[in-house]
């Protein structure tokens, strides 16, 4: 007898409906699984066999063929286990009901019949809802992820038996209640990385504020142990609050990677800090088991912090250039290509020189000019060009560390950031540009008119520091953001001067 059950597979961030078909025939007992399954899917046979037996049913001793349709799509992961088990029960007439229609079943089975959580529930649920599916059975462990999606009925089952009893109506389950995003936010504990815990560093704090306000990328240069990481960690806390749609989009990516936190949805902007040994594939996405989102996608909507920037492999850094411009990454493999969102703020940290003490007051730098040039040369000009603000972070004195002076908290800074973002939203209404950093030549001409005085300052700086045309455009964009923070329609000379001060690497001519 033939039976079929609906399930879902993932292709990037999109769910694709998969129909699990089983045919139980007379013949020598055998089990054939077709439909381009990967190793994890093939292994489902043993899990399904044990789970069915240990749940009190019997595994059909017949010639069994299971097909995962559409057959040309490569199937990965363990989410089909539940659907395969149910399909076998149906085909062997142990489960006689038509009520499985209209349901989508997702979940991995344990040998004892328990349902285990799987990755990517959220994007699959969202895609399925958009395709008209309304009823789902998911593992209990995935319930928290499912609770933010309105318009669907999601049942969280603990094991195979519960699922069967729910379908047959013996012991119906209660749908997972819909929870509001606000409620999740309410649970949020205080951010341990608040700007108020950063002592001193007035220059860097200001640069950070400007960077977040205008969506600019930021480079922190300073000797080891001066607080570069601490500053970077505080960036998400000054970024505008997540909206529900943003949170959902970010959570989708993290769901595919299998980490959605305790609330089932990300309430804070992500902060990703891949180690400098990271490979290009781990950074941009890819991998041997299908195309997984990389660090830049996991940082989507948040911050990608690259500490010790010159230590990263050059190819890895160069791969960041295109996503930095486009906000998405398309990973192409022989098995297919997948597009993940990758719109992140890049924050990088580096030492001023190989020994780290250049510019330090107490410790002498022992590097030769050639060494310093080589060290800085490891970061390509085009990448550096995409980092609008470069600021020095320097050691904090003992007095600063112990003083009781309350530093400005992230909430206060965020208020100003929100305002500057609002100005930008109004300015760029109707265009694809969202922040000042995304302005192109046309927008710069339109929104960044320079007075004669500003132009004079810029010209003098251009000649004195032999700036590039690109650097000039970046200075104007940053000046625009500084003016926005000062509620100023016009870009004033002071704004231009401040913007120039954030291009320290251009000025040194390196």
């Amino acid at each position: 007898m033939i039976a079929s059950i609906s399930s879902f597979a993932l292709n990037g961030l999109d769910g694709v409906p998969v129909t699990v078909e089983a045919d139980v025939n007379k013949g020598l007992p055998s089990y054939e699984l077709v439909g381009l399954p990967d190793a994890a899917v093939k292994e489902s046979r043993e899990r399904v066999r044990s789970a069915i037996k240990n749940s009190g049913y019997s595994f059909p001793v017949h010639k069994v063929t299971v097909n995962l349709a559409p057959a040309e799509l490569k199937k990965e992961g363990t989410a089909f286990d539940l659907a395969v088990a149910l399909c076998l029960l149906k085909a062997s007439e142990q489960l006689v009901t038509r009520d499985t229609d209209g349901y989508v079943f997702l979940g991995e089975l344990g040998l004892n019949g328990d349902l285990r959580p799987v990755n990517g529930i959220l994007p699959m649920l969202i895609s399925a809802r958009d395709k008209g599916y309304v009823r789902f059975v998911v593992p209990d462990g995935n319930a928290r992820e499912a609770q933010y999606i309105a318009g669907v009925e999601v049942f969280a089952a603990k094991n195979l038996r519960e699922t069967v009893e729910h379908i047959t109506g013996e012991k119906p389950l209660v749908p997972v209640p819909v929870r509001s995003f606000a409620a999740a936010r309410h649970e949020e504990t205080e951010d341990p990385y608040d700007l108020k815990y950063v002592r001193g560093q007035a220059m860097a704090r200001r640069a950070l504020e400007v960077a977040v306000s205008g969506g600019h990328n930021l480079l922190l240069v300073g000797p080891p142990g001066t607080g570069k990481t601490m500053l970077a960690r505080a960036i998400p806390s000054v970024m505008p609050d997540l909206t529900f749609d943003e949170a959902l989009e970010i959570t989708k990516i993290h769901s595919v990677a299998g980490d959605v936190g305790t609330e089932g949805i990300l309430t804070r902007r992500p902060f990703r800090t891949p180690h400098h040994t990271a490979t290009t594939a781990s950074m941009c996405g890819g991998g041997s088991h299908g195309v997984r989102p990389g660090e830049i996608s996991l940082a989507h909507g948040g911050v990608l912090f690259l500490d010790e920037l010159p230590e990263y492999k050059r190819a890895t850094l160069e791969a960041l250039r295109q996503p930095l411009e486009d906000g998405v990454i398309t990973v192409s493999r022989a098995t297919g290509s997948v597009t993940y969102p990758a719109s992140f703020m890049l924050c990088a940290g580096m030492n001023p020189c190989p020994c780290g003490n250049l510019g330090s007051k107490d410790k002498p730098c022992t590097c030769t000019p050639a060494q310093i040039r080589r060290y800085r040369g490891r970061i390509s000009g085009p990448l550096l060009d995409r980092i609008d603000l470069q600021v020095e972070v320097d050691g904090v004195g003992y007095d600063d560390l112990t003083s009781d002076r309350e530093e400005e908290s992230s909430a206060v800074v965020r208020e100003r950031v929100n305002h500057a973002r609002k100005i930008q939203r109004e300015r760029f209404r109707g265009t694809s540009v969202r922040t000042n950093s995304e302005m192109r030549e046309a927008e710069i001409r339109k929104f960044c008119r320079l007075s004669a005085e500003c132009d004079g300052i810029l010209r003098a700086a251009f000649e004195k520091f032999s700036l590039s045309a690109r650097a000039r455009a970046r200075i104007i964009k940053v000046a625009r953001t500084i003016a926005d923070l000062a509620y100023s329609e016009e870009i004033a000379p002071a704004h231009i001067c401040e913007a120039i001060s954030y291009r320290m690497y251009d000025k040194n001519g390196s």
Partner: protein
Amino acid sequence: MQERKYLYTAEEKFIIWLDGFESLTYRQKSGILSLFPSAADFVREDGERRAQLLRIVPEETLRGMLDTLKKAEYLPTLLSNLAQKGIFCVTIRSADYPESLRAIPAPPLLLYCRGDRSLLKGDKFAVVGSRRTLSWAQALAQSFAADLSSHFTVVTGVAEGGDIAAVKGALAAAKERGEARSRLICVLAHGLDHVYPAAHADILREVSARGLVVTEHRPDVSPQKFLFPVRNRIIAGLVRGVLVVSGGLRSGTSITANYALEYGRDVFAFPYNPGIPSGAGCNALLKNGAAPADCLQDILSWYGLEEKQAAMPALNEEERKVMRVVCERGETHIEDIFRDTGIPVYRLSGILSGLEVKGLVARAGGNRYAAVGIYSDDAESKELLPD
């Protein structure tokens, strides 16, 4: 590069020919030259000449040398190879060989040059600094070189730090004055086929286009450590005075300064705070009688020259406040400036970068700033004057 014809006298050709032998030392070459006051003497065929020469060079070498004389194309090839590279030679017997250089012990017999030959004439002044030069000293060296280049031909090297700052200053000053050529001579310690440091290839090309590049080495001689101190005698030999902008106790600049003292040149040095390693050499020179130079007039008045009074750039109230703090405190952290002036840091960073553009302050790293040169506050001094 288009081949240019340079005309040489027989005397000059003789020295160019002589310098072409890799195996000859300076001592051997100058020995041969002193034996033969004119090239014609050398060409003369007699036994006496041979005996004299054998006292200086081994027989085998001599035979090789004399063989080249028999080849008709040897010397023309040598000359056209140089000309192809745009290199002209000034020999110790050339009319425009600088007199001051001729007077030093062991003057270079031959200068391979690229650029503007006329710069060999006229008064020269050296601005030299070590590779490790603080940013304010670099900025100051740059502005000194710029101003000096309107009175002197600036002589320096092309190393990082102090030297290249002087080069940039002299080049920029000429551009600012709208002059096609810069009064600038760079003396190299290696052949003109090479560039050291390689990062300065562009700037060196500009110097040979608008100023003059000079070396005593054949074009193929690669940079080597021991050649640099030897080069410094040429810098000291060319000039009337030397300004040392930076240098440790044992650095190349102190070698230049010692040569200069030995040759009776005037030595000036930037005064440094005690305890700055890159300025210890300067302070040691000052202790030994060098003249301190913290403004351009210190040098110009020594030679009876008058500084063209450059107006202090107009500053507003806040900028003056900041300048006063930076001048009083020396190298100052931006947060200390904030404490003294009360101007918030984000505004300060703008003000300071404006002052940097005007050439009044320089970044010292780690968000610290230092004043460049002496800042005279006209408005303030007027306030202090009694009515």
